[in-house]
């Protein structure tokens, strides 16, 4: 293997192992910043040694052992002679390379969960949670995060540094939560993952309609989370939602990069494997709790589309009922807007328009471009083209996404003829 190949392999192994390394080190050091630094040090040592000695049989364990030794050194240097030190020094006997995995496997799941709880902690801003989670749990570089969110690399780097500082100063604990607190914090975690997914699924700004990297990372993280929390119905609900939505990712974009809406997509190109996975996750979520939570309900809605052989055969009455249920467990003007669309498809545009008109007074939807495009759409169906054009123009002026803007302008122009 040439040294370039070796470096590439090391980089890959790092991406595969870094979350586990950082999670385990955080348990020892109780500080996510120190943990990341030490994990990086282990990487530097690997970069130095592996080209000479070859890549070890169990590279993850090698990195873990190396990092743990550093952790012990660090603690010694800091002369912390508390219980933690004794425990680790004691544990060192276990860390023979072959045995590290066995010794740690039971713990690593919990450590990963603790780390997710930490990076999605409510003391952090939403932006910081997303950046820190992508970096520490997905092994995504600062540069890749910056590219995904169209901001400068230095902005993301600062965001991550600041987030780690806040976690330290607020003494955020590295813990597996229970009861009500676990439920609440898990919902924060799901929110971060779904936010990440959504930004990839329909980018709020820039001139690309979708950013596949974010969708992939969010889905992968969701899958990882479902493995470490096998009894949480909403985790499976979110995974189901993301699997099914991802099945359409490639049909959401036309040959020129333009958005293609759900009803116009070529269903033959939907990814059947992901649909199957999504439906299985949804079934499992229902098995865990027959009362569907917000994510499972959204997944059930998404499943209705996935199961319809053609757009015309969509079961809109069922979708309208599911939105009704969703508006009860997680009421929001956006859910209401979606319900309006479903109602109009099930029972006619005038019924949908009634709901949309009520929403127009909603202050939180002021400036929300989709309110206007939905209204425009309903007006077109009712033959009120002049009003429809105004709505599409308004909507186009509001969106920050260049591709979507173009689509909406076209729709406005179509109202002329």
């Amino acid at each position: 293997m040439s040294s370039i190949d070796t470096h590439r392999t090391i980089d890959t192994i790092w991406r595969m192992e870094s979350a586990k390394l950082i999670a385990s080190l955080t348990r020892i050091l109780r500080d996510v910043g120190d943990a990341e630094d030490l994990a990086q040090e282990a990487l530097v040592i690997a970069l130095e040694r592996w080209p000479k000695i070859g890549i070890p049989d169990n590279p993850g364990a090698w990195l873990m052992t190396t990092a743990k030794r550093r952790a012990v050194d660090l603690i010694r240097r800091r002369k912390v002679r508390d219980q933690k030190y004794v425990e680790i020094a004691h544990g060192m006997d276990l860390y023979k390379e072959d045995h590290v995995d066995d010794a740690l496997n039971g713990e690593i799941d919990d450590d990963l969960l603790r780390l997710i709880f930490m990076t999605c902690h409510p003391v952090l801003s939403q932006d910081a949670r997303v950046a820190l989670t992508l970096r520490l749990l997905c092994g995504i570089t600062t540069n890749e995060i910056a590219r995904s969110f169209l901001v400068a690399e230095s902005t993301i780097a600062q965001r991550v540094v600041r987030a780690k500082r806040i976690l330290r100063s607020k003494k955020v604990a590295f813990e597996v939560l229970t009861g009500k607190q676990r439920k609440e914090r898990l919902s924060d975690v799901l929110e971060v993952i779904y936010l990440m997914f959504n930004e990839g699924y329909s980018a709020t700004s820039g001139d690309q309609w979708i950013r596949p990297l974010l969708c992939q990372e969010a889905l992968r993280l969701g899958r990882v989370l479902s493995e470490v929390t096998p009894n949480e119905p909403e985790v499976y609900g979110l995974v189901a939602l993301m699997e099914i939505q991802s099945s359409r990712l490639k049909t959401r974009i036309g040959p020129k990069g333009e958005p293609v809406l759900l009803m116009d997509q070529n269903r033959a190109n939907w990814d059947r494997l992901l649909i199957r996975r999504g439906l299985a996750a949804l079934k499992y979520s229902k098995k865990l709790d027959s009362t569907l939570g917000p994510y499972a309900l959204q997944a059930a809605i998404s499943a209705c589309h996935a199961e319809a052989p053609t757009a015309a055969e969509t079961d809109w009455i069922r979708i309208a009922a599911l939105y009704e249920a969703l508006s009860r467990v997680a009421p929001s003007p956006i859910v209401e807007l979606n319900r309006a669309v479903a109602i109009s498809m099930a029972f006619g545009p005038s019924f949908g328009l009634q709901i949309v008109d009520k929403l127009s007074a909603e202050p939180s939807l002021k400036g929300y471009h989709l309110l206007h495009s939905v209204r425009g759409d309903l007006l077109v169906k009712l033959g009120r083209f002049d009003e429809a054009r105004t709505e599409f123009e308004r909507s186009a002026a509001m969106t920050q996404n260049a591709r979507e803007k173009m689509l909406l302008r076209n729709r406005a122009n179509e109202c002329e003829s």
Partner: protein
Amino acid sequence: MRFMIIVKATTDSEKRVMPSEELYGAMQRYHEELAKAGVLIDRSGLQPSSSGIRISYPEPGGKPKVIDGPFTEAKELIAGYTLIEVKSREEAIEWAHRYPDPHGFGQGEIELRPLYEAEDLTMNPELLEKDAELNKQLEDPKKE
């Protein structure tokens, strides 16, 4: 990107000889590890070729020829597959390396093959160009 880890058939797999408990355990652990990393998409084992048929078209435009299994040359046959979704070719190779020897008696062979992603967005030259342009802007601090 998706890769298929293809496990080749062996004389044992063709004779429906079940793997040893040890090998079975190693396979389970490996696939659990894949699932925990969020990369496992699908997996299945195939019945021996004696349960299969082959359809071939020896004459251009002619009628198909149907042959019942079993087929010879175990190494050219497939005994199972594991489908993974990973970030890079290197990651796929690394996972394939970790696959346990699927036979244990000298005939083990696995093959790693990338799946075609015709609509793969990263292969769209226009989007790639846009990306490069965007990167240039991001690297230029004056435009920040």
